[in-house]
Structures are given as C-alpha cells and as structure tokens.
C-alpha cells in the first residue's frame, strides 16, 4: 500500500507540522534527502536548511529547520528539530 506519508515535524516547544504528504525533501547532515512513500526505514541527522513538504493534492509547505533527526518508518515520517520556523530558508 503506497498511501501518502504521515508527516510530523516537531520542535521542542510545539508541533510545527502534522499531516499527509506525497513526498518531502529534508536537509540531512550531508545533503538533501528525499522521501517518497514506501521508503526504507531510515534514521538520519538533520542539518540546517529548507524542509519542503509536497501535499497530496498539489502545493507545498516549506519550513526552515536547524539540527535534529529524521526518522522514516512505514510511511510515518517524524522530524525532530531543535529549531523550526515557517520562513523558507
């Protein structure tokens, strides 16, 4: 089943984003990493940069994130970041 991804972006003091996504591109520690549905389980460090989330119906959200860790498991994507805001990087 290749449904949309369930994405959660969490910073220490709030949930920045929670919802479905067709795909996303996150700034990993060593370069950008793209995640599509049915991605293999993954755990990676996040650097500083732009996180962009493509919504299933088109359109996209983008955030600036800095530091943290990205976890992908069975189409559940969790990005714990130390800092996030809505302003694109």
């Amino acid at each position, binding site marked *: 089943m290749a449904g949309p991804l369930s994405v*959660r972006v*969490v*910073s*220490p*003091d*709030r*949930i920045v984003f929670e919802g479905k996504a067709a795909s996303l591109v996150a700034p*990993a*520690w*060593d370069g950008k990493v793209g995640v599509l549905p049915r991605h*293999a*389980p*993954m*755990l*990676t*460090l996040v650097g500083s940069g732009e996180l962009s989330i493509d919504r299933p119906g088109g359109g996209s959200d983008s955030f600036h994130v800095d*530091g*943290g*860790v990205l*976890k992908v*498991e069975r189409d559940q994507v*969790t990005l*714990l970041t*130390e*800092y996030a805001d809505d302003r694109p990087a």
Partner: protein
Amino acid sequence: MAGERDVKRRIKSVENTRQITRTMELVATSKMKRATDRVHAARPYASGLQDIVRGLYSPGLADRYPILRRPEETKRAAVLLLTANRGLCGAFNSNLIRQARDLIDKLRADGIETELHIAGKKGVAYFRFRGEEMLTQRTDMSDTPTVEAAESLTGPIRDRFERGEVDAVYLVSSEFRSAMSTPPRTRELLPIEGDEGASSVDAYILSPSADGILEKILPAYVRNAVYTALVENAAAEQGARRTAMKNATDNAGDVLNHLTRTYNRARQAQITQEIAEIVGGSAALE
C-alpha cells in the same frame, strides 16, 4: 466599647487582603493555563527523542562516549534543583527544597561528595542562608522557559559529567500531574538510563551511523529533559500559587464573616447599653 472601631478597621483590612489574593488567584489561573499548554506542547518532542535514544542505545557505546559513561562507583554527584523565583505559592518551594535537602543528606551519608546547582531565587536564598556552596546560582529563569535557557543551565553540568568531574547528576523539580497535584520529583539525569539490548533500529538505514547520531542527539536529549522540567516547574508553580491564593481568599471570607458578626454584636451591645442608660436616666428623673 473596645471593639467597634477596631473591628471595623480590621474588616476593611481583611477585605483589602481578600481583594489582592483573589486577583492573584485569577492571574495565576490564566498564567497556569498558558503554562499547561506549553507542558503539553513539549511532550511530542520529548517522547520522540526518547524513542530514538532508546532505539539506538547499546551497552557497547558507553565506552566510546563520555556522556554515556557508567561510572562503577559514584564518588561525586551533582544535584540540580529547580525552584521558583517568587513566593506566595504555598509549600511549592519548601517541598522542592526539602526534597533536595533529603537527597543531598542521603548522598553525603553514603560518602558521596555532592555539589549543588540551583536555579530559582527561592532555592538560592535557602542554600545561601545555610552557608552551602553552590556551583550554579541562576535567578534568571523566566516563567516561559526557552530551549536556550535550558542549554545554558545544562551545558556546564553536562561538561562536568563528560570530563568525569561528577559521576551522577540528579534533577529535582516538580512533576506537573494536575493543577492540584504537583509533587516534587527526583530524577537521575546522568548517566543516561538505556534499555540494555533494546536496540530496535537494526533494520534502519542509519546516516551517518548509530554513533554519529547519538553523539549529536544525546546532548539534546539531556538538555531537553531539563527543558521539560523547567516548563513543568513553571506550570506547577502557577498551579500551586492558584491553590494557595484560593485558600487565602476563602479564609479571608471566613474571617470576614466572623469579624462582621463580632462587629454587629458589639454595635448591638452598645445600642442596648445606650437604651438602658436612657431608660435608667428617665426613671431617675421621675
């Protein structure tokens, strides 16, 4: 009558006090509301981080990371106590201080050198009065704690642990169960408790590596434990203050009832006496 005017003055004074405590109750209630929201908002990150650390932890890593080291023997411990900057919140501060005091006494009784790190004016004032040396004295923690504030508090203690200058770090703060229940709690901040052999991320693509991820995540994990404690403490303080001020307002009401009754009785007695005097006077004229 000795009473009447004095009682009236006291009634006025108690009314003023009640006005103040009621206002403080309302202020604490609204601050607590926001503080509680922050407690809830901080939970997803804390639990997410905990899952990841638990998943990556394996006993073998302890040898390579100073932050994961598990000293065989605890020679020196650090106690980090979080208290409020302000009083008028019932036994909130004294409960925390007593908890810390008990812990320190217990550690010292076991022959462990114990150093103090205190945040909050009330805790600092108490231990200064006791003549205890404090390695950290912070009175600049706000009601709305930030991650940066938590880092500035945690960083130096974490460094001391990593350098082997302390073998254990305990955190004493309030647990925010509800507005009415905010018991003090002691937690072992360092060494980090890992579930031995619970490594659940074998099937993961790890980038850079379990070690590399832990190296970055562990300091954040420790810092976040202190951050959540600060947030919970702030909410618990407002909860305790609200309860204390509600009790004070209720008590003022009781005192007012009592005083009003005393006042009326004194007034009645005076009227009765005046009538008796008039009647006595007119009877004497006849």
